[in-house]
């Protein structure tokens, strides 16, 4: 078992899948010679050649659309969007096409494409290199949206996404790329898409979150533990469709729920999590559902004071947890 960074887990999963199945190939901007702007595909061009690690023109709709076509043929394309913010030109291909191909053809066709994109803030990326875009897609049956928090989850879930027979959006937190390290088994394994994961057992309050929020919650939980507050942490891992059962169980466990996202608050996927709780756990709650999120402004500003103001962090999570515990 090796300790590796979040981004190394991405590269490892890609490499192993390409070795395992020659129908797997990568396409995107700068993924080839350069190895990606974040180096997620580093070394793959050298190992697998330019045909399987394909530098495309600067055209996200074509990257998605050509990938979908190849997937319908029977290939296993892994498309990279250079930043999640730049997935927007491909929305038509993703929502109108990828999501609906199986359904509209009555199961005759399917489009097993994986679309990877780095998302998230706290990297001085300003408005267009910091966004969380999952909510745009989290109302489209036919799609799955995976947002892993740890290197272990990255490897197992990215492999699962590539092998999945339906389209999967795979959002990687760009600040986690080098910040987050963890143990990753050398062997081949997959983790189930659609299943949330308890990252910490606790009895007093429940935090439900995903991505970098999981680490912020874990850090906050350490501090809270010092004061005898025991935090239960559920990592959604797949944010669409949600793991309702796990959410209900986690909410019922403590009766006090904090939902955390770094996306803008209104319309983010934690709204749906709150709705599931409101529908299913009303009489189990000891406090109103609480949400911690980015403010409802278009996106994270560039200047450090404003960026910090926008971005969630362990302190903000801790403070919200204390308020909830004291309720």
């Amino acid at each position, binding site marked *: 078992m090796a300790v590796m960074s979040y981004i190394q887990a991405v590269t490892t999963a890609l490499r192993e899948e390409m070795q395992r199945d020659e129908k797997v*190939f990568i396409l995107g901007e700068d993924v080839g010679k350069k190895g990606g702007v974040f180096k997620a595909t580093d070394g793959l061009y050298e190992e697998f050649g330019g045909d399987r690690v394909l530098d495309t*023109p600067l055209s996200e709709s074509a990257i998605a659309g*050509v990938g979908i076509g190849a997937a*319908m043929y029977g290939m296993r394309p892994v498309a990279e969007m250079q930043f999640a913010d730049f997935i927007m030109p491909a929305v038509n*291909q993703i929502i109108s096409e990828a999501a609906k191909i199986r*359904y509209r*053809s*009555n199961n005759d066709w399917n489009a097993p494409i994986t679309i990877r994109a780095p998302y998230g803030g706290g990297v001085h990326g300003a408005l267009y290199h910091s966004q969380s875009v999952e909510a745009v897609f989290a109302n489209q049956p036919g799609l799955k949206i995976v947002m892993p928090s740890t290197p272990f989850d990255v490897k197992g879930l990215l492999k699962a996404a590539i092998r999945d027979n339906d389209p999967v959006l795979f959002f990687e937190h760009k600040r986690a790329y080098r910040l987050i390290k963890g143990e990753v088994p050398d062997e081949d394994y997959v983790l189930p898409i659609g299943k949330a994961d308890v990252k910490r057992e606790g009895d007093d309050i429940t935090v439900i979150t995903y991505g970098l929020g999981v680490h912020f919650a874990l850090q906050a939980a350490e501090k809270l533990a010092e004061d005898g507050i025991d935090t239960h942490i559920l990592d959604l891992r797949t944010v669409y469709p949600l793991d309702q059962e796990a959410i209900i169980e986690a909410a019922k466990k403590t009766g006090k729920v904090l939902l955390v996202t770094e996306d803008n608050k209104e319309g983010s996927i934690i709204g749906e999590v709150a709705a599931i709780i409101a529908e299913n756990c009303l009489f189990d709650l000891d406090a109103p559902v609480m949400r911690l999120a980015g403010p409802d402004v278009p996106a994270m500003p560039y200047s450090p004071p404003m960026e910090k103001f926008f971005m969630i962090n362990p302190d903000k999570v801790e403070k919200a947890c204390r308020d909830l515990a004291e309720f």
Partner: protein
Amino acid sequence: MGNKRHEKIGLSEEQVLEMYKTMLLARKIDERMWLLNRSGKIPFVISCQGQEAAQVGAAFALDRQKDWTAPYYRDLGVVLAFGMTPKDLMLSAFAKAEDPNSGGRQMPGHFGQKKNRILTGSSPVTTQLPHAVGVALAGKMEKQDFVSFVTLGEGSSNQGDFHEGLNFAGVHKLPVITMVENNKYAISVPFDRQVASENISIRASSYGMHGITVDGNDPIAVYEAVKDARERAINGEGPSLIEAVTYRLTAHSSDDDDRTYREKEEIEEAKKHDCVLTFSNYLKEVGVLTEELDEKIHAEVKELVNEATEYAEEAPYAAPEHALRFVYEE
């Protein structure tokens, strides 16, 4: 006995008759659908009428056992040539469970049939173009020798996906043939308010590919252009953009009333060049088609259409709860 143009480009009598029959079949299915629509039996129809020559001419120039296609909603002629049956099409018009395109989930004109390598299509225009490029890319990666054939309207050639898809195909020299069926209107908007270039095929130069404009009313001309494009593709010379100039003989769809935006005279004039008529005349002139044979073909086609209509009308709908199936792999 006129000039046998078809022979010069290697088309046999059987082939041109088969082409004629396919064109006629497309036309007659389409006409029947209008009747069914006007009598309230099916909610919607969108037509191939006027474009059969382009569709059938193109399809016959392909290897229909091997090549892949991503047709657009008017391509009745293409899908018939690729193996879809009149029954399949009528099942789709009636939205019945057995419809191979979508099991009655999509409107008619939204083709798709895996066994015949017809990619499933949607309503937003031009999205199929990058798909066809993707299939061509896959074929190249897998060292297959098929081509991928995609069609769209001239209005649809102004979508971003046209540009992105063709540039991708051009850069990677992929075996994909794009045919724009320029019927001079996009619903109500005429060519000159829609397309800034003098014609569509000139756009090929933006993608470093071969481009040509042909008379879309002449199935032989279209056949020749597509045949040539296919050879280029198979020889590794890359993609082609073909513009087939046609005319839309019906309203845009059964929901449209075209009298508000085009003159009756214009349509009357176009009807004189109706491709089914002119091809039939050509075949008669060159002695391939006799009146007798023509009648026989008409009768056969009618029989096929009747049979298909009856079958489809009787066929059951999918159960209501079937709406819940096949969102994801089951």
